[in-house]
């Protein structure tokens, strides 16, 4: 009897603790400002009743990456008043011949546009595009549209490196605040970065983030650990912990899709700059700001072009101006004073075209300024770097094709592992 009572009491205590811990995190009033770069309101237009768009997603809404696309297409659906069956979302389609079958199936369902969201879908989509010239195929993050010369096959991306640069400014200001308060010395301003793979997409992002931080905090340096996976909570957490403990990093950012790094930061009370949307709820005491790509303008654009019988750009690159690069609000509990003002100033410069992220006067490679760099823009399977990317004093990212191709390891950034 005694044991049973004890067990019952212990169980209820545990349940209460659980309830209490849940309650605790939500009762905090959010110290978030309005979105710094908000999602724009898009214009309405009429779409024919027989219009259909098919969306092929690698995973389902449990992945922040795919969720971003699903939310975007659904928001455009609601805006344009499309019926549910006019937007067919296929989730969990692997990067393999299943993608071809799914695209064929969407064609047979009379979709006018077929969109795929993952890099690896591309080679399985192109044969279907060739076989069905009457249907438009749009592919996010792909690299082959500008060399395939198919009128109905298109790539898209966004200048997210500009968003990362802005997020970097917020990080640099936080470092300055820490130096000023005497918490760290100027040379201890080391940023840690958790990356998924060593691809151009990640390198372009982490470099722009670093350049943003260093534009306001000149002593900043950065250390990077790669996880070899786009979504692995344990590995991302582990990498963030190693950066904080072994590499003495005092601020963390990440380019991977789980909450591993933000959670590790919250535990250690180390400030975090996030990606793919606000992670304030995971780290109310450490979250500063987050950048993300907003895909709604692209869905809006392709549906509009097809409705009006106009051609879709072979490579479409969303910018701050199109509303494709967005920034969350600032967590005023963590961010340095004056962050909003500094960001607004840089945004204005981006809009005016006077600020270039990869300005060659702002970084060096092995001690030297870079005057010329051939990038592998044409993805023909040869890995030949054929396109001169540096002109007018800066590296022209996402101009010769939408997907990033900046893959240079610049001075000040140290890769702790490059196995991936």
């Amino acid at each position, binding site marked *: 009897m005694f044991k049973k009572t004890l067990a019952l009491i212990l169980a209820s205590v545990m349940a209460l603790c659980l309830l209490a811990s849940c309650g605790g995190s939500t009762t905090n009033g959010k110290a978030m400002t309005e979105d710094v770069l908000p999602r724009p309101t898009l214009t309405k237009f009429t779409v024919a009743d027989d219009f259909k768009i098919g969306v092929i997603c690698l995973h389902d*809404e449990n992945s922040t990456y795919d969720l971003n696309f699903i939310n975007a297409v659904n928001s455009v659906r609601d805006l344009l008043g499309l019926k549910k069956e006019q937007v067919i979302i296929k989730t969990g389609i692997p990067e393999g*011949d299943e993608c071809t079958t799914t695209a064929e199936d969407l064609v047979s369902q009379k979709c006018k546009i077929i969109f795929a969201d993952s*890099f690896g879908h591309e080679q399985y989509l192109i044969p279907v595009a060739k076989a069905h010239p009457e249907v438009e195929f749009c592919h996010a993050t792909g690299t082959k549209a500008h060399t395939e010369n198919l009128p109905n096959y298109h790539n898209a991306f966004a200048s997210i490196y500009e968003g990362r640069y802005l997020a970097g400014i917020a990080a640099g200001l936080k470092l300055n605040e820490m130096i000023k308060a005497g918490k760290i010395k100027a040379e201890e301003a080391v940023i840690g970065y958790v990356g998924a793979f060593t*691809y151009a997409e990640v390198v372009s992002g982490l470099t722009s983030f670093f350049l943003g931080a260093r534009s306001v905090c000149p002593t900043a340096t950065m250390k990077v650990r790669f996880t070899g996976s786009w979504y692995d909570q344990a590995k991302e957490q582990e990498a963030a912990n190693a950066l904080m403990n072994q590499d003495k990093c005092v601020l963390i950012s990440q380019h991977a899709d789980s909450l591993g790094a933000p959670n590790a930061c919250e535990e250690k009370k180390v400030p975090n700059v996030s990606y793919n949307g606000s992670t304030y709820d995971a780290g109310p005491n450490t979250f500063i700001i987050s950048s993300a790509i907003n895909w709604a303008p692209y869905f809006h654009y392709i549906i509009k072009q097809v409705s009006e019988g106009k051609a879709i750009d072979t490579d479409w690159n969303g910018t701050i101006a199109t509303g494709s690069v967005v920034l969350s609000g600032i967590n005023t509990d963590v961010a340095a004073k004056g962050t909003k003002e500094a960001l607004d100033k840089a945004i204005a410069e981006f809009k005016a075209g006077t600020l270039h992220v990869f300005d060659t006067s702002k970084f060096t490679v092995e001690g030297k300024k870079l005057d010329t760099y051939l990038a592998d823009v044409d*993805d023909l399977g040869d890995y030949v770097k054929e396109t001169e990317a540096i002109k007018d004093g800066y590296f022209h990212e996402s101009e010769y094709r939408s997907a990033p191709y900046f893959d240079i390891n610049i001075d000040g950034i140290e890769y702790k592992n490059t196995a991936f």
Partner: protein
Amino acid sequence: MTAAERPVKAEKIKAPLITITKRDSLPPYRRILIRAAAIVAALLLCSVITLIVTKSNPIEIYKTMFSGAFGNGIRIIRTVYEISVLLIIAVAITPAFKMKFWNTGAEGQVLIGGLTTAMVMLYLGGKVPDGLLIVVMAAAAIGAGVIWGVIPAFFKAYWKTNETLFTLMMNYVAIQLVECFLKIADKTGSNVVGPTMLKNGWFPKFFGLDYMLDVVIIAVLTVLVYIYLRYSKHGYEISVVGESENTAKYIGINVKKVIIRTMALSGALCGIAGLLIVGGASHSISAETAGGRGFTAIMVSWLAKFNPLLMVFSSLLIVFLERGAGEVATVFSLNKSFSDILTGIILFFIIGCEFFINYKLHFRRQAKEERV
């Protein structure tokens, strides 16, 4: 409860509410009836859950499932292909399973077959005529599958290592080898080497249909394995070793030889599965090429009681549920987890009903009457 109370209670012991006894074998029609009842019960429970959770009409959900698997020509071809691939892997593991060699390594054996196929396609493609290339692909895939099957069999035969763990671990070795190959062959950073790189050695279309050559090959192999297990001396030896190793030894069967030979066959068939997936359908290799089929195949084989011909139906059931579930997720904007739940319920009932075929339940009231 104190110690003093216990003896008092013990005297008042009642007959248990339910007693279970083993049945004599049931006539076939009753077995079919029990299975049909299980499926009906499963569908009813699924309907109730669907109504409660999603408020969607369950009939519509079942219709959508059917349409997802057989709704149009593209879907039918894909479904038939998926059934055949699952079937060949189930058939492949069956000889080992009949021998009570618990081969959980089909996943890795398929993968290594696929990997060697892809490597031949990549490195020899364009250098030799396509006909010869396909022959080399087949030889490489079968060879690799045999090696992957024989290693754990050899250790089991000579040192009695645990084959379940051994074959399971071989899966991870295969996965890592694939990852390694992807790293070397493809530098764009995609997780798959696909048709843009593997341009040669594609199986020809069969009467103008994709995948159909695979399906025909698999149909032939299934029949051959059925005959092998049922009518050949080897098949008999496998059954005896499975029933009792000592009996096998007593009647002069070389158990070690049978174990190794049978796993070589299992591995070869898995290697062929890898060959058919990569050369005949996807023209791609990634860590997902086997896609968990190596494990699903165990269920397919068990459900069919290790009869290769019946596996056509169990494989159809699993693939139908899977493909139907995907379509339900799309049409009803439900997460795929929901359709996985339905699939789980249906499989639970189908596997669970085997209990009622093998055992009989007696309730307490009956027991009392019997005593009176």
